[in-house]
């Protein structure tokens, strides 16, 4: 989905279920078994190898976007419609953006990544 995001890069070593794994109130990873537990994703460009877990992750991403705690953008190694629809709905409801780009880890050499249209 279209959009430009910029921010410090956070590379997640494993997929993250936003529902049950991310707290939309403070923007931090809370999944106890995730390698990046405790890391803040707010305002970051987050690389995630693939989606994970709950289909409620759409709601959690949308809620985080409403609250202003969401990542600036997400780069997914594999397509994941669950996060895409969360971002689309928050954009429609509140006019806020969290572009999601499906790319691959090899493209991410620098601390900042420009996200284009898929």
């Amino acid at each position, binding site marked *: 989905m279209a959009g430009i995001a910029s921010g410090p890069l956070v590379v997640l070593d494993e997929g993250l279920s936003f529902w049950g794994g991310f707290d939309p109130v403070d923007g931090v990873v809370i999944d106890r078994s995730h390698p990046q537990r405790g890391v803040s994703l707010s305002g970051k460009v987050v690389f995630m190898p693939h989606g994970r877990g709950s289909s409620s992750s759409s709601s959690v991403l949308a809620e985080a976007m409403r609250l202003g705690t969401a990542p600036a953008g997400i780069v997914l190694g594999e397509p994941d419609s669950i996060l895409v629809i969360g971002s689309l709905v928050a954009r429609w409801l509140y006019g806020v953006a969290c572009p*999601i780009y499906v790319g691959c880890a090899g493209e991410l050499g620098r601390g900042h990544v420009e996200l284009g249209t898929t």
Partner: protein
Amino acid sequence: MYLTEDEKAMLGGEAGEAIRIAMDLLVEAAAAMDAPRLLEISGAHIDGCLYHGRAGLDFATALATAGGRVVVPTTLNVSSLDLLHPELYRGDRGEAEASRQLMTAYEDMGCRPTWTCAPYQLPERPGFGEQVAWGESNAIVFANSVLGARTNRYGDFLDICCALTGRAPATGLHTDAGRRATLVLDIEVPEAWKDDDLLYVAVGLALGQIAGTEVALIEGLDGRAGEDRLKALGAAAASSGAVGMFHVSNVTPEAETFGGEPDRRVRVTGRELIATLRSLAGDGQLGAVSLGTPHASAAEIEELAILCAGRRAKVPFFVNTGRDVAARVSESLETLREFGSTIVTDTCTYLTPILGQVEGVVMTNSGKWAYYAPANIGVDVAFGNTKDCVESAVVGEIVNTGLLG
């Protein structure tokens, strides 16, 4: 993307504002999924009725206010509230009120108030080859793998967009190509574990970790993998990974059709299975027991009632099930109540404040519960098969005769 004349009309607002909004979002999501077109569905299961904050309520209210009505039979997932046992809820009243408003918005759109995460236990579950749009990760994996119905992993919001338009993106697990196994999981099952429920939980957790989003063919399990064990396996795999479908050799309906010619093979030893279970388990005294995640089936409740009959639990003991199943097994539920069990319907003990303050670890037979409960409700977990969970509750401390013994 190719759209039919009907679909173009929906997008143009000719079928009303709610359908225009739903079609607009659906088409954009479908484009992001590289779907060449949409396909017609015959049913939907909505996960969006579980409250996660204002955004979900704003969305459902907007669609309902715009006159949204589902055009296919649509069931509803668990919510945050147990409407049959409202006294169990110990959470914030304001949040309870918002949860109730969200549930009402989905009912107003014509969805059936089934309030279960196991819609495949309802009499009208989809048949083999049927195209549906389901939310709820465990239900998705069960529909594809065990029923042979076809759905992608639909998140909140996209599920209701599909139900309002009767369409879904024609890609992924809706297509033959998307259902082909790309991976074989070769399970080493020690003889003593062949009939242990926890085997299926451990295989599911390992499957999710190894497969991620891939479709795997599992080898090494046998005819003892009935529906309830496949439910437990799929729910665990959809928690530790993003698994939307798996095949089990000689067990699931499409294993022969789509199980051939995988790209890679991974061997999982018994030792690794045990380590997978232990990685989610904490230590401590037994504080409570929670069973029925995903919602217990009628067969599971009847089996549990036999184990519990004439005995008494020393610690709080919870069983989650759907209201439809509960109505079918009321006698067995009475036996469970005499045992000291609290019966929870419409929601689940890891979603919402029901357990209260627990002194010690919570024992469960569910990989999904073990995966999410620590972060959601702040408890530590111990695993046991159903029988060991009952024995532990009776003696008041953790008993493991099975896989972890």
